[in-house]
């Protein structure tokens, strides 16, 4: 059991090292990422996104829109 406890302590040391290393590196990576994003697009607020691209890229929604449009079109003609 002493052997296992020793292995457990080793796991703890290496494990916390791994967790801290990875998350601290991630701090720097995220800062670099934010700077990169800023340099590409400028300080764009989230709100400029909007749902427009969603619709444009969404095949089925377009089909639905077309269908609806057609029905409206037909009704107008009658």
């Amino acid at each position, binding site marked *: 059991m002493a052997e296992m406890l020793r292995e457990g302590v080793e796991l703890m040391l290496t494990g*916390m090292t791994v967790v801290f290393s990875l998350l601290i590196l991630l701090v720097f990576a995220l800062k670099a990422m934010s700077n990169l994003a800023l340099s590409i697009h400028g300080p764009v607020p*989230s709100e400029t996104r909007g749902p427009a691209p969603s619709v444009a890229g969404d095949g089925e929604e377009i089909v639905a829109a077309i269908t609806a449009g057609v029905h409206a079109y037909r009704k107008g003609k009658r």
Partner: protein
Amino acid sequence: MQSDLLLKLWETTGLANFDGPGQIFMIAIGGLLIYLAIAKQFEPLLLIPIGFGAILSNIPVADMSGPEGILGYFYSVGVTTGVFPLLIFLGVGALTDFGALIANPKTLILGAAAQFGIFFTLLGALAMNAVPGVEFSLADAAAIGIIGGADGPTAIFLASRLSPDLLGAIAVAAYSYMALVPIIQPPIMRALTTAKERSVVMEELREVSTTERIFFPFTVLLLVVILLPTASPLVGMLMFGNLLRESGVVKRLSDTAQNELINIVTILLGLAVGSRLHADEFLNTETIGILLIGLVAFAVGTGTGVLMGKAMHRLSGGQVNPLIGAAGVSAVPMAARVVNKVGLESNPNNYLLMHAMGPNVAGVIGSAVAAGFLLSMLG
């Protein structure tokens, strides 16, 4: 002949087939979990299916958790393969706004510190081997340790890989203690901080751009791939879900991942986990050990998170409120709300919720990383 039939009939009743009080006790445990879920709102989304699964799997004769039973099918299709917890992670990714973490990435360090609970618990589980009747392997101890990660799907995923026999007890402990976060954490938070520290008002978080939100999942995944690829199933599915959310071009997929997909998988996963709450696997000294030590796990993780918060408080010249370190255990969003509540006690105008969301979601990443590490060492 008629009496033969009656005998056969009697032999198929539950009364004639209960094999001891264990099954009845486990049915009562299932009922208790459901009671806590309904009356005390203990993580009802998981504990109601788990509790009901526990009841169903302890019904004699029907053998619903056996290899030909419906709960057994759910277990082998979704838990043995790891598919269900990973799909839950997909949904959680689609549900989670990582904006607070992007705005203040330093809070990742708080999410790292709180993972000490995992490894402390691992040691504790090994120490319990001194108790007669308890025999935990290193893999068992690691699976028990992940309770300290305070993240249900991570715990189920790791336990299904390292220690399937203990999965039931580990999942129950993880969800139960996550529900107890509002009771477990505040005394520890108060004990480790001064009133002055607790009343620190933090600077408002900056806004995060769409581009940053889209780059975020790739950044996280990149580091995991380079340093700890065994964590990439968990982190990868989480980040995939988040990309569906943030990309803005696949709203229908994001909506489905956040709603129907995660709901369906939650029902099936809960039943499957419940099917591991079998009398013969669950009722033993080891389970009691797991439940006791799981409680310690949460307390230790909270403590190390708050202590790291104090360190950041000093290093930042008093700008960081150390309470937010407690949110590093994950238990999203419960722990962040607890931070907010304890903060309001010291300063009724100090809303820490958003600041706590950073370490809170960092804790999810931290636990997934810890799980990946344990998999790479022991899997």
